[in-house]
């Protein structure tokens, strides 16, 4: 059903599918549109009833404020997001390979621990880190925040990688072993390339989690020189007042570079199909 029949894809059908796809995406992104709409709505019209479907009298004060204030925060967020991806991949992919293919004793227990690890509420994790970071002297550093943010993604990464790698046929790794490859080489040159989809998936989510983290940033980096965008937004949330134009505008501006990254990454997922992972 889902696969195109071998041979010529029918142009008319593909067009219809595209139209449906655009429609579904539009529906999904309606709240995002609404956010953009609010970001352009003057204060006195924000609670207008009925609301304006389009920003007829747009105000750009929010965007002016954002472009003036927020660019350094944006750069920090990108730095933290990408670094978190690296840390997450380095820690989770090799471990998952072992769990999926080498099956060490006690792996069931480890799996359960990973599950529980993800259940600890973020704020409790943050409180724990506060003490640890203070003692290590890595409070208010961007890379300290990377370590903290990676805890959001590492258990996820291990579980996703394990699920995907256990689907790789044993013959594939066995063949490598027969060729005299050690475990590390098997992992590096056979298993990892074949797990490209999992790599992209894990990277995407570790990036997104680091990108949108607020609790860790607030607890561990609120006095730092480099702060992420989630803290930058708080410039518009005073003790008595919230400037919604600027808050929404920050979200809009901040999502653009990240969205570009996502589109590029998605290209890789599509390319991953041709890797022909599961042929024997």
């Amino acid at each position, binding site marked *: *059903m*889902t*696969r195109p029949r071998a041979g010529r894809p029918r142009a008319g059908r593909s067009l219809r599918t595209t139209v449906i796809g655009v429609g579904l995406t539009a529906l999904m992104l309606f709240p995002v549109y609404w956010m953009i709409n609010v970001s352009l709505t003057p204060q006195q019209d924000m609670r207008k009833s009925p609301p304006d479907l389009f920003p007829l009298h747009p105000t750009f004060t929010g965007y002016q404020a954002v472009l003036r204030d927020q660019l350094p925060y944006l750069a920090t967020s990108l730095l933290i997001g990408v670094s978190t991806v690296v840390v997450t991949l380095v820690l989770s992919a090799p471990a998952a390979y072992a769990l999926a293919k080498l099956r*060490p004793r006690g792996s069931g227990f480890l799996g359960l621990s990973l599950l529980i690890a993800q259940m600890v509420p973020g704020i409790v994790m943050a409180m724990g880190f506060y003490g640890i970071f203070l003692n290590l002297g890595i409070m208010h550093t961007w890379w300290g925040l990377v370590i903290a943010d990676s805890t959001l993604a590492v258990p996820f990464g291990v579980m996703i990688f394990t699920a995907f790698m256990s*689907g790789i046929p044993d013959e594939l790794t066995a063949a490598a072993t027969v060729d005299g490859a050690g475990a590390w080489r098997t992992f590096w040159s056979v298993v990892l390339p074949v797990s490209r989809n999992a790599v992209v998936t894990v990277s995407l989510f570790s990036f997104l989690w680091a990108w949108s983290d607020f609790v860790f940033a607030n607890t561990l980096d609120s006095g730092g020189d480099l702060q992420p965008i989630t803290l930058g937004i708080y410039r518009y949330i005073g003790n008595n007042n919230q400037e919604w134009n600027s808050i929404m505008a920050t979200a809009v501006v901040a999502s653009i570079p990240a969205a570009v990254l996502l589109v590029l990454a998605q290209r890789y997922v599509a390319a*991953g199909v041709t890797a022909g992972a599961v042929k024997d």
Partner: protein
Amino acid sequence: MTLAHTDRPPRSPAAFRATHRTRGPQAAVRCRRRRTQLTAWAFVAPLVAYLAAFYLYPLYRNLDLSLRHYTVRSFVDGNAPFSGWANFSQVLHDPTFWPALTNTAVFTVASLAFQYTIGLALAVFFNRRFRLAGILRALFLIPWLLPLIVSSSTWAWMLNSESGIVNHTLNLVGIAPVDWLTSPRWALTSVIIANIWIGVPFNLVVLYSGLQNVPAELYEAASLDGAGAWQQFRRITFPLLRPVSAITLLLGLVYTLKVFDLIWIMTRGGPGNSSSTLATWSYRLGFGTLLPQFGPGAAVGNILILIALLFGLLYIRIQRRQEA
């Protein structure tokens, strides 16, 4: 890790036999097994150290908080007396407990069911080759780029009973306005809707990557056999996607149990307790008032961990049975 691997894609009987034949005498097997064990642990060791370094202490803290009688003063000076199960018994007898538990169950089950179904449908849809598919799929992830305070506030905005776009639209088609966030009847439904929206991209991405590993030849063969689209989905897609589905649902369960910011921003768990879940309640006890009650807050948090643990064990059990 047994948590994640279930049935592997079918392999040819010949290959299966071949692997079996390579096994040597018992001693050699034992030796090789030991060596594999060592290699395996070398791969896993960084992860184990990492988990120990970063999760053990917070977990210990959470447990400790829930087993002591903490006041704000003893939180600071560290002299809270051990109080056993007192915090747990306090929260279990609190009138908020049962509403919060049932709300958690409804919130989790409804969110998971819809997120998974919609996510799977979209994954299958995007698995067709069509123009713009890649870009559209990427656009689906945009909700994840927004800080939760923004996306949740936008939903609260849209669902506002006086000036929200949703009620305005309902009005246009002749439906009376609904007090989405401010009536006890609708508040939980509203936060579930918003949470489904937030969760769909996750399900879509993971399930879609799972689909990429389903060999195309299977579909070709099935279609030669004259199997229709639904049959292909039921016979091939769904069964082969099971390990990924299982892990998606399990992770989804964990994440959904934990959700608090979304509900907190949209309704503060209210009105009354009508949209309070265990997670929001735990947050409110520990951090949501001027006088934090760390002990009971941590106790509720630990009850949540226990629930997740039970589901984790259940999952392993099902896996084992399937493998056997």
